[in-house]
């Protein structure tokens, strides 16, 4: 009985948001810019695009760095003080509360480096947040590649880097992508970091990296707290935005789970 509580809660939240959100969603809502003076005349198009842009910047930063670190930890490094401290600091970074990363983004990216509240600051701060996920996911995925693959490739005369690039990464990539997608699902719903590193009430689509950008989680927060609108309208718009956000998140994670399942099946198939 007790075990079912988490299932019930999950369905209750999703169903509640879905039922209330559906009433607001229309083409106008999805494709218009927000109008903060008269909320019910606007939409959330820039926020959807903004969320995706932030996610892109974040992944562009965290994915190459994470995969490279993972390769180094799994393939090159011997167990010594350096790899131990790298692992320790990756754990540290994973444990830092998102609000602290937001504050760091505010002082370092926005003020010290002078990026201002922009897409670049927000994306990089998100990147700091999910970097540990990408590092761990790639290290784990690379470690599960059977040793015989590597030995076969090396025996054929391939160099170490060639082996990693065309043998190890090729069989590890579904695992890596799953890890990255789970990180992306976390990044897209993150509000605290983006709230501190980008502006709040944005009505346009960003044209460059240094433009300000709106994101769905921040929009929900702003609509409920700052924007002057009647309570009912604000709530219904927040429902609509929540629904879009949940849909994005569900798509990402269902895709990740699907990928993982096919990957597991394929791996167990090849062993038989």
């Amino acid at each position, binding site marked *: 009985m*007790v*075990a*079912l*509580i*988490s*299932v019930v*809660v*999950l369905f209750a*939240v999703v169903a*509640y*948001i879905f039922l209330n959100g559906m009433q607001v969603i229309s083409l106008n809502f999805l494709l218009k810019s927000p109008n903060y003076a008269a909320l019910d005349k606007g939409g959330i198009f820039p926020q959807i695009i903004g969320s995706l842009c932030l996610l892109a910047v974040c992944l562009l930063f965290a994915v190459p*760095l994470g995969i*490279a*670190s993972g390769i*180094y930890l799994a393939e*090159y*490094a011997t167990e010594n003080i350096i*790899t131990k401290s*790298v692992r320790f*600091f*990756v*754990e*540290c*970074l994973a*444990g*830092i*509360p*998102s*609000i*602290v990363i937001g*504050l*760091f983004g*505010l*002082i*370092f990216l926005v003020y*010290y480096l002078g990026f201002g509240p922009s897409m670049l600051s927000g994306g990089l701060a998100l990147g*700091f947040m999910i*970097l540990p996920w990408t590092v761990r996911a790639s290290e784990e995925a690379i470690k599960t590649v059977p040793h015989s693959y590597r030995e076969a490739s090396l025996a054929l005369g391939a*160099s*170490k*880097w060639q082996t990693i690039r065309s043998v190890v990464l090729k069989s590890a990539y579904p695992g890596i992508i799953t890890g990255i997608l789970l990180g992306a*699902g*976390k990044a*897209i*719903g*993150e*509000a*605290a970091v983006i709230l501190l590193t980008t502006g*709040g009430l944005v009505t346009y689509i960003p044209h460059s990296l240094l433009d300000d950008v709106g994101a769905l*989680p921040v929009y*929900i927060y702003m609509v*409920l707290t700052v924007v002057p609108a009647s309570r009912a309208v604000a*709530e219904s718009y*927040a429902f609509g935005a*929540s629904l879009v*956000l*949940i849909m994005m*998140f569900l798509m990402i*994670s269902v895709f990740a*789970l699907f990928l993982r399942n096919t990957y597991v099946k394929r791996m167990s198939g090849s062993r038989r």
Partner: protein
Amino acid sequence: MSDSECIRTFKFKFRRMELRKEKIIEKLLFVSALSSILIVFFIIAFMLKESIPALALGWDFFFGMTWHPSHEQFGIFPIVVTTFVVGIGALAIAAAIGIPTAIFLAEFSPRWLRNIIKPCVEMLVGIPSIVLGFFGLMVLVVFIRDSFGGYGECILAGWIILAIMTLPHVISISEDSIRAVPKGYKEASLALGATQLQTIRRAILPNARSGILASLILGMGNAVGETMAVLMVIGNPEIPWIPSSILEPVRVLTSTIVLEYSYVVWGSMHQHALFAIGVVLFVIVAIFNLVTTVAVKGRFGATTAIKGVIGSR
């Protein structure tokens, strides 16, 4: 130079180039592996630099009873106390639901049911915290206001929302540590005539204890660091005080930062105090994580397992 010699030198040069490339790649990978260390150092350095003026207030900052920025009073003690109250309460609820769930999943559950529950629990982790907070605001807060009175936005609402958020961690780590208990213990206990419940209580739980504890401490760290969901349901009064009932609106460390950063005067003591709150939060969560790491390390150690068996007799 004959043809074959020419080819040989060329091959040699080519090989050297290849080797050089390999070396460069290895260096590049090494540098990127160091990036996480660099980022953590940058975070610590910048947070400390910004917060030193406030941390230098010492006693007045850590144990001051009033947080009233417009009167230049920055005592975070009530906020820290509430943060722990909210975190511990949430954890108690999460433990009360999570540990039985973990036992059920690991010991009793048929396979098909587990295949439904497990992905749902995993999904629950990822529901955007702002959405969960909004749900709490619309459903929980209204429910509490109607049935218990008061503002509705209160510690109780914070407990429930945070319990939902920490539940998945508690369930999955506890389940793993219950599964890690060697099968032989269970079989030995059953063979001695113990019932299944007795076996779980006397043989399995004592051995899985450190893993379960670790999951709780980790959940506590998450609960303390959680921002948006809590922010939306706990009310956040202008001047925080130490609450005397669970139906009072309160304010936690994270919500203070989010609410006040937007109107803070840059370079003022207020701004330094907000960053100092960030440092305090960082330290609290780091301590929880460190304790978890130590506890998990002891989990598979033979000594704890043996002690558990002997202790339970």
